[in-house]
């Protein structure tokens, strides 16, 4: 069964239809890369998955459970959305770390707040917090940041900040981890260190949706590539096809813009 099933997502801002019916599905452990030029709707698609935007049409299901269906108001209750978001993690282009917290605190904050909703929170507080803390340290170590856990974001490089942000998203164990152009704000050297970390996650069978402009990376890491243009999926399939031997003229033209000097 697909872990993520997106059907016919539509979104209009004012008079501009940004998403004109996007469908795709994803199995556990798969990585889908979404490529396309700016304004093609890639970011809006991710924001819809994370309930930062409400689609005007279509449905989103995770593990067979319909989280959102534009035709069913019962799936759109404001009060439920917060919990539904936890199925997804999102890594932003601009990191969006909380500046007043250390790397470790950034990773533990949300978990600690969610622990308050546990029924036996008061009795088990120490144990819960110790677990959250331990997992956060392990994640930061996995990101190669063991010696940086007590640094504040402004003391870290962009690449380090983005790796903290990845650890922060992973800490809540989302079913699907989304990346919104995670390296677009980084110089080439720092880009590589972040891509290396995402590659590791792919090797560990992390289910991911990655919006990216790094074609070589998308080709290596994805099981699936979506090429979007003008709010529709123009071409989708394995990376060898979409990036290696595109069948559509629009895909070809887009990819040429990367190889041309």
């Amino acid at each position, binding site marked *: 069964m697909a872990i993520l099933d997106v059907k016919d997502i539509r979104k209009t801002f004012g008079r501009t239809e940004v998403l004109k019916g996007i469908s795709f599905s994803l199995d556990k452990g798969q990585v889908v890369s979404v490529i396309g030029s700016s304004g093609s709707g890639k970011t809006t698609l991710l924001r819809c998955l*994370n*309930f*930062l935007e409400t689609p005007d049409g279509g449905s989103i299901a995770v593990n067979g459970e319909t989280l959102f269906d534009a035709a069913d108001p019962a799936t759109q209750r404001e009060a439920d959305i*917060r*919990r539904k*978001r*936890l199925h*997804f*993690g*999102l890594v*932003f282009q*601009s990191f*969006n*770390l*909380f*500046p*007043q917290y250390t790397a470790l605190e950034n990773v533990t*904050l*949300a978990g600690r*707040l*969610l622990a308050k909703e546990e029924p036996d929170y008061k009795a088990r507080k120490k144990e819960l917090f110790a677990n959250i803390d331990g997992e956060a340290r392990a994640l930061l170590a996995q990101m190669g940041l063991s010696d940086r856990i007590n640094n*504040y*974001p*402004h003391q870290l490089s962009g690449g380090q900040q983005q790796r903290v942000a990845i650890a*922060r*998203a992973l800490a*809540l164990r989302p079913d699907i981890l989304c990346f919104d152009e995670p390296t677009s704000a980084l110089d080439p050297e720092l880009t590589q260190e972040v891509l290396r970390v995402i590659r590791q996650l792919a090797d560990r069978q992390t289910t991911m949706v990655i919006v990216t402009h790094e074609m070589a990376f998308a080709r290596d890491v994805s099981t699936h590539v979506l090429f979007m243009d003008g709010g529709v999926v123009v071409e989708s399939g394995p990376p060898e096809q979409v990036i290696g031997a595109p069948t559509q003229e629009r895909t070809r033209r887009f990819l040429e813009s990367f190889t041309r000097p």
Partner: protein
Amino acid sequence: MDLILQQMPTVLKALNVGFLQTLKLFVATGLGAFPLGLVIAFGSMSRFKPLSLLTRFVVWVVRGTPLMIQLLIIYYFPGMVLKNNIWGSGEAGRFLASAIAFIFNYACYFSEIYRGGIQSIPKGQQEAGMVLGMTKSQIFFKVTLLQVIKRIVPPMSNEIITLVKDTALARIIALQEIIWAGQSFLKGSHGIAGAIWPLFFTAVYYLAFTGIVTLVLGRLEKRLDYFR
């Protein structure tokens, strides 16, 4: 000079009493206006149009008229126009009327500083909190608030220092604060009459107090220096 030295103990005693009232008004305004300003800020940022328009109108009126006039209206309007002097004639009533005028006036100024501070926080901070499953109030208190405080300390310091000196306006309804106390030696009080120097001397109190306030606010700014 000898005369001044001779009058000094009596004058200082009276000025101290007046300054205590100044201090009380300052503290009451702070305690009231800090939270009320936040309420007004949320009102002016409300997505419910009638509320935000009404709030902005009130802020415009309060910021657009002299605090001195507001003091006079709040103190005299109930008694003279409504024939119901809710404040009574004593010092306690004058203090209450002054405190209400000051709290409301300063809350309006604070609200604009808060609004600017809140709106200056990048939207991404809130969104990061949202995708991490935080509630709106968790995002406000755990993510946004401290960043807002850091940004508004300098403009708030300005307002707070102005407030120290603005308390003198309560003299207009005869609140017995330090200006009133200094002035009393002109007309005659405690056996001293026609002395202008006590009124001038009140400036020393203001200067010393703003000095302390500046130091405290400077330390707060320093303490928030650990992040950017």
